[in-house]
């Protein structure tokens, strides 16, 4: 019984992380009918931001008996969480703006800037514009701003070329194109990660104090697990509030029902889609940061690959486009994995995720909470 409850707790904690990533998948699917395969890699970037912020950017102190240092570290950890959410949200917006929007709306004159940035990247590397990420946050910002300026100038110069091309191309919006692009962005982030972060695995040391709590008959809950669970819960409640009780949330729901009708009603769909990507990216960033900082696992550029796939499965199990479904799917995945992992079948831990997917899709093709006719966000 003790072991059963203990495994259940691990499962729920793991599941809450899957749910956090799955929310990003499901929201994007809801508004765009697009499976954003790059989402798991945003989670990886979140973990790396956690690593650099904790190790190099912010003045964390070595944990000691000094209570001031401990409180300072906890405050700084919250700052890291917010920073990670902010940067990953921005990354989500950038991905949407430059990879998915041109496929949807056609090549616009502003896309010239994207190509400007793309071309200036090797130039910036060549002139060592970027400091090492380990140098400090100020240097990191300096490099980014300098690069953005160069990229902007090059992009402006490219405007005639883009206009020339855009006048000669015919837009054929296709879901398949967007899907393939998503896989491309995912590969770009992973392999770009080898370049920017380096291929050596990184670890984040103990930044906030950890304690074990014993509850009902020997079941142990660790303060870090509790924190992950609580923060995930709070973020999900905030998301629920945004979707159900704000104008933007209303617009998201309208777009997921019918994007063309929403456009005709005067909703700025591109802006709402950007917000959706920002929220999804921020949730993934929070997840990655929490895993890196609170569980001390090794971080590599492929860190987001497997969690991303599992969260995607969770979103499909719950019913793509359905927010409570994503949370439910995440918890199911986490709990199933914990029980299989704890049994004599622990070798098949990852296989079980996909076995569940197949079974549920056979019984309910639209997912547990999904509806066949109309999907909602």
């Amino acid at each position, binding site marked *: 019984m003790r072991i059963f409850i203990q*495994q259940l707790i691990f499962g729920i904690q793991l599941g809450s992380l899957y749910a956090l990533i799955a929310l990003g998948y499901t929201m994007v699917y809801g508004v765009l009918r697009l499976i954003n395969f790059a989402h798991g890699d945003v989670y990886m970037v979140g973990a790396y931001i956690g690593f650099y912020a904790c190790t190099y950017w912010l003045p964390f102190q070595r944990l000691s008996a000094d209570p001031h240092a401990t409180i300072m570290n906890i405050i700084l950890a919250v700052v890291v969480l917010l920073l990670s959410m902010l940067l990953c949200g921005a990354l989500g917006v950038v991905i949407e703006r430059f990879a998915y929007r041109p496929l949807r709306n056609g090549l616009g004159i502003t896309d010239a800037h994207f190509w400007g940035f793309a071309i200036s990247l090797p130039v910036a590397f060549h002139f060592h514009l970027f400091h090492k990420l380990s140098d400090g946050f100020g240097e990191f910002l300096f490099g980014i701003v300098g690069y953005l300026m160069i990229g902007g100038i090059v992009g402006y110069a490219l405007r005639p*070329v883009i206009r020339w091309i855009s006048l000669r191309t015919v837009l054929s919006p296709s879901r398949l194109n967007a899907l393939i692009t998503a896989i491309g962005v995912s590969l770009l982030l992973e392999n770009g990660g080898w370049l920017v972060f380096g291929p050596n695995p990184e670890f984040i040391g103990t930044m906030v104090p950890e304690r074990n709590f014993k509850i009902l008959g020997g079941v*142990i809950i*660790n303060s870090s697990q509790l924190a992950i669970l609580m923060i995930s819960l709070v973020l999900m409640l905030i998301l629920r509030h945004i979707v159900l009780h704000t104008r933007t949330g209303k617009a998201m729901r309208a777009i997921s029902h019918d994007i063309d009708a929403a456009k005709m009603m005067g909703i700025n769909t591109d802006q709402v889609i950007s917000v959706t990507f920002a929220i999804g990216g921020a949730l993934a960033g929070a997840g990655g940061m929490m895993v890196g900082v609170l569980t*001390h696992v090794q971080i590599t550029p492929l860190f987001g690959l497997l969690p991303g796939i599992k969260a995607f499965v969770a979103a499909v199990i719950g019913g793509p486009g359905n927010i409570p479904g994503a949370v439910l799917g995440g918890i199911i995945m986490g709990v199933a994995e*914990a029980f299989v992992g704890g049994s004599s079948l622990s070798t098949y*831990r990852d296989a079980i995720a996909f076995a569940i997917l197949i079974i549920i899709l056979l019984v309910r093709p639209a997912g547990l909470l999904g509806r066949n006719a109309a999907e909602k966000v």
Partner: protein
Amino acid sequence: MKGVHRLVAGMLAVGLILSGYGCRTHGVKIGGPGGLQYIPVGDFSSLTGDTATFGTSTHNGLALAIEQANAAGGVKNLPIKLYTEDDQSMPDVARTVVTKLITEDHVIAVVGEVASTRSLAAAPICQQYKIPMITPASTNPAVTKKGDYIFRTCFTDDFQAAVMAHFAHDQGYKRVAVFKDIRNDYSIGIAKIFEREFTKLGGTITGEQTYQEGDTDFKAQLNTLKGQNPDAVLIPGYYSEVGTIARQAREIGLNVPLLGCDGWDSPKLIQAAGNALNGCYFSDHYFSKDIKDPAMQKFFADYKAKYGYTPDALAALGFDAGNLLVDALKRAKSLTPSALRDALATTKDFPGITGKITIDANRNARKAAIIMKIVGEKKVLYKVYTPEEIDQ
């Protein structure tokens, strides 16, 4: 329109300039008629990737050995030139770079790898081209079974696992659980032999759980192991996961000593584990600052002078592999791969710093092992086991 064309032409020009950086000039390898200008030796190591500290250490040790040999006049009046390739900790990359070393750089011997999985990937290629391969630190027994051109200068997993079984028995552990990496030949091999030897000594294996390289959550498996009340848990894995496993074990209240093997030997281990590994033990190659041997102390000093930090056991193994190769090159009747193979196969009592190396009929070395204990954030020498004591 004209402006556009000029822009495109400019972009192409920039692209051409940038792509020019990729080119390299090839040095002249073969000298005038009748001979080599230098002896080409290949080295493939995991300089980056999951087990980057392994490859960096063996490579540094090997490079130091070659440098010292060249400073002492080289072999047969020729300097040795080391061609180094990074396999990024991936077996298929190892296969590619070893093929490149043999077919493009025309090396007459290959030194590498630490991870058995990668040595197993490269060995068939060396065997196929009949180029002697020396693995400094791959302990899986299958590596040298790939053919008569494959040599090993460290002990095998069978020996290491038996040492751990004896050690667990000597410590008075009666019940030991095993947590192994199901995707790693090294881990599976040690678990198997340990279970056999430990049962033979009268101990009980309480249970076995598995994980996979790259996993991040081990709590479910550890919780099951905890329920079996073991006296200790054997984790024959690599440092990249062991640190996280140790932390999570302590988190769920599994507070028994953890036992490991030479895959734990990395400066990053403590960084990953914090103080979760305090009071744990692992078997390692016969190499420690605590051993007062002049050759070993000299290596410590030389290595630190060249690289700026203290060497680990893998660096010493790389150094030994390099010196053994130099010795065999000197003894070889000619500078051809087959003559070198014969010289390597007849190595007897070569004085390596990690112990005397005698290559047996299966092209393996028999050497002593040590048990290291982790105390706080330091690793200290705890015990020595010689092959005679284990007597396999």
